[in-house]
């Protein structure tokens, strides 16, 4: 690269997208800087993927101890030191963000602390210094969307960041506004820790994007655990009173309104791309009306040497998509033949049971004009699931009828996210249901249910009757 710039690549934002881009660019021999105005690791490590999973594990341990009575293991009085739990979770976050810092050092990525603003298409200002670079990667991520009428105070009305700080004792009555992934992960956490949780969703279905059958089974499992789910319902306004937060709920079909009282209200109604303070226009970079900075398959924006990745670039707003795009942008800058050409981007709700999927839902496949076959296998017929005391859910496979080509895999059940490894690779390798069915899967594993779902596509599952 030309010598007249301070850096070959300057990455803006050190979330999962940004730090993957920075490290890969450095691995490929480029001179790299990464500007970050808050904490290295971005939303994902600090207030997203990681702390939620820590709390989910804690909640599941509580639930697991309760279920142990079924096999004769009982415990005396259970005590949860909420301060210690918050501290443990924060410790994991610190270890991981510290790790990213060390990786920056070891890979010789210059970490610039402060907000980066474009001055022109080869210059940014970070704090009171300016830096030039041959290429930029915009990885500024996203912020929680706000809901008019519900003012987040991070105490009684919280967004996902506030919800991560558990009060002691946990709220008795909790409302999650928004029945997406984040809403249900928190619903699961708070339910397991003792709250009575209601989730409301504006749309007719929870977890938009997931397969209808899977969503149905998932909702049933959540309800079985005590979560109350109300779809086609919105929250109009919230009033904080002595006895709780009074929330006006409206059934959007009937228009019927009623007020319910909660101790904590979580607003989890989506996320918005984050471009504040970036001054993208100074570099001539297009920002859409909705705030996205779109990119092509090489992650290039309309300005050829400026790239955009992760949440700020496009939906779905998921860390692994940001990571992939970060690697692609770095490799393209280094002259490698990379592209964001993924067949499918997996999605996961890390509750118990988990809901995990990759590829097309049955409906999406039909909408795209595919003639499909499907195969289902329930965990209630899995020996491994029985020994884990987790038999809710199933594996569903969506396959093209004539070619047997795998189109999508949808799993509700124990360790569902672990099984996405096989499903994702199968999709990327253009595998058929037969390829999966002919592959030996270890016994007794949860993965056998993936095998059996593939067999079910051909009406040859062994442990169920094939209609």
């Amino acid at each position, binding site marked *: 690269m030309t010598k007249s710039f301070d850096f070959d690549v300057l990455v803006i934002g050190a979330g999962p997208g940004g730090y993957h881009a920075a490290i890969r660019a450095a691995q490929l021999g480029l001179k790299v800087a990464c500007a970050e105005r808050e904490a290295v690791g971005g939303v994902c490590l600090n207030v997203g993927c990681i702390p939620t999973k820590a709390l989910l594990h804690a909640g599941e341990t509580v639930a697991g101890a309760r279920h142990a009575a079924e096999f004769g293991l009982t415990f005396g009085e259970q005590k949860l030191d909420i301060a210690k739990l918050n501290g443990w979770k924060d410790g994991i976050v610190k270890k991981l963000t510290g790790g990213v810092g060390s990786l920056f050092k070891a890979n010789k990525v210059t970490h610039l602390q402060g907000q980066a603003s474009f001055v022109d298409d080869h210059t940014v200002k970070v704090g009171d210094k300016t830096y030039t670079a041959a290429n930029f990667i915009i990885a500024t991520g996203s912020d929680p969307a706000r809901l008019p009428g519900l003012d987040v105070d991070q105490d009684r009305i919280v967004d996902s960041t506030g919800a991560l700080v558990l009060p002691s004792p946990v709220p008795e009555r909790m409302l999650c506004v928004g029945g997406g992934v984040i809403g249900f992960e928190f619903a699961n956490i708070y339910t397991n820790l003792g709250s009575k949780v209601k989730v409301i969703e504006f749309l007719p279905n929870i977890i938009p994007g997931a397969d209808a059958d899977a969503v149905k089974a998932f909702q049933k499992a959540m309800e079985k655990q005590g979560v109350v789910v109300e779809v086609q319902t919105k929250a109009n306004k919230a009033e904080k009173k002595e006895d709780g937060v009074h929330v006006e709920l409206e059934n959007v079909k009937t228009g019927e309104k009623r007020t319910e009282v909660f101790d904590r209200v979580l607003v989890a109604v989506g996320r918005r791309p984050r471009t504040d303070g970036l001054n993208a226009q100074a570099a001539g970079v297009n920002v859409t009306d909705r705030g996205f900075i779109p990119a092509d398959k090489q992650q290039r924006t309309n300005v050829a040497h400026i790239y955009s990745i992760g949440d700020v670039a496009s939906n779905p707003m998921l860390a692994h998509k940001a990571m992939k795009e970060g690697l692609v942008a770095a490799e393209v800058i280094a002259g490698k033949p990379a592209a964001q050409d993924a067949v499918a981007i997996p999605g996961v709700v890390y509750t118990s049971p988990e809901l995990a999927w990759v590829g097309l839902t049955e409906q999406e496949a039909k909408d795209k004009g595919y003639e499909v076959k499907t195969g289902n296998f329930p965990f209630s017929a899995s020996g491994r699931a029985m020994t884990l005391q987790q038999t809710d859910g199933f594996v569903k496979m969506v396959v093209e009828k004539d070619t*047997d080509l795998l189109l999508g895999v949808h799993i509700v059940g124990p360790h569902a996210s672990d099984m996405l490894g096989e499903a994702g690779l199968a999709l990327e*390798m*253009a*595998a*058929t249901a*037969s*390829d999966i069915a*002919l*592959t030996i899967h270890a016994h007794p594993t949860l993965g056998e249910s993936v095998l059996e779902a593939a067999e079910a596509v051909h009406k040859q599952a062994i442990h169920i009757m094939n209609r």
Partner: protein
Amino acid sequence: RGPVAAAPARADGRVLAVPAARQLARELGVDLAAVGGSGPNGRIRVQDVLAHSEVGRPQAAAPAPAAPAVAQAPAPAPAAPQ
């Protein structure tokens, strides 16, 4: 794309083919060692086996009239990039 030649035999004798292609080859009586795999390292996919077994059938939609195919002729590469 030109025709894909069968990969040279691997040192350990393994023919690289996906499970469904192995099954199909048995069904069609095709010798996998003679099939040109279109994947990396000559990996054989279902389409490769089908293409191979089409060779020599007069009704097969051949791109151009060619000399009578022999059983060992390399299969045409499938159109899809892999």
